[in-house]
């Protein structure tokens, strides 16, 4: 859950966490009807930096109040589509 851990993390982990937050489908057991998610796009402001091995690390903005020590915010937009599992 990326919103709870507002620490810098590798962008690969960040993207996987984002997809974890999205349910594949929701259904009403009483009626048997449901909706499946075909894909989604998410756009979030980010703080970014480069770690010691040159990989991109990002986080959601971490400061609730502007303190003057916040990193300027960039933006990340990711589009996920549904893929077949096993």
């Amino acid at each position, binding site marked *: 859950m990326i919103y709870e851990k507002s620490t810098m993390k*590798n*962008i*690969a*982990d960040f*993207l*996987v966490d984002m*997809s974890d937050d*999205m349910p*594949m*489908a929701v259904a009403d057991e009483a009626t048997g009807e449901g909706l*499946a998610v075909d*894909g*989604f796009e998410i756009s979030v402001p*980010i703080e*970014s*930096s*480069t770690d*010691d091995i*040159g*990989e*991109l690390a990002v986080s959601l903005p971490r400061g609730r109040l502007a303190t*003057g*020590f*916040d*990193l*300027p*915010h*960039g*933006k*990340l*937009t*990711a*589009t*996920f*589509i*549904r*893929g*077949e*599992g*096993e």
Partner: protein
Amino acid sequence: MTRATGSGPVFSVEEFVQSLTAQLDKAQDSLAIKAKTGRPLTFALKDLSVDLKVFWEAPQGQLKLRHAAPNEEGASTVHLSFTTITRSMAEENSLSLALDEDHRSLSEIADEASLGEEERRQLEMVGVRTVGQFRRLSESTHPKQVEAYLGIPVNRLRMALERSSRPAVIEQQPVRGPDNRRLMRIRGANLMSGSTPEVLMSGEPVEVLEASETELLVKPMAHHREGQYEVRVSGQRATGFYELPGEEAPGSQADPYATATHPYAQGAYGQANPHQAHQAHQPAHQRPPNGQPQYAESEYLPAGGSRW
């Protein structure tokens, strides 16, 4: 990546994009692994765009990026977009790495009189990194064009082209022939020009069984153990040093050659010490300090097909 004093690390766009691509591959792999844990469906990353707040810096004339630090105003925004492509699309948009092309780096044929560090950097900026690419450039452009666009004088280009066409040996290794005869394979560049080259081992001519521009297969005499060999191509020569194990009973533990499944199986000798295998066998005192093989000096021979 380098670290600038008093600020975050700086990085080139190229290495940053390569690193980011590897990270995106890792993300795709992680998503795919989730599907293997029993989930019938999973999400896959289709497109990604990132806006980064950065500052541009130019240490040593190379444009590099640095992430904006807290309280820094006036940062630029770099917008990067990625989308998924198939393997065939990637191959269509990649350089062809033909096996028969000369893959030596430009530094191996360059010196301050031909291509200095600045000239090599200029060529690398237009995607010319290997000797093979340099020769292809010479076949499709006029040197005046290259001089006009990259600022490299024509005489330097011609000198580099001349050096690129000289025969050079890169490595040699003992191999076992189909009749269990010990042979030696020589790899290099410009090892043939029309006719079969002449090869001498310790000053004695030996039979050349196969020859191509990049590889020779020769048959040493029974008494050849170690010494210098020489490849003569159209009046030019390249030299290296060989060291061949003695004859052993095939299949014995002491047999330094691999069991032949291919007509000319690679000898274990050549694999035992990869560092050594990539050097022409030269006595230590004759090797250059950087461990690179020493290429032969030879006379000028224009490269075939060049317009320079």
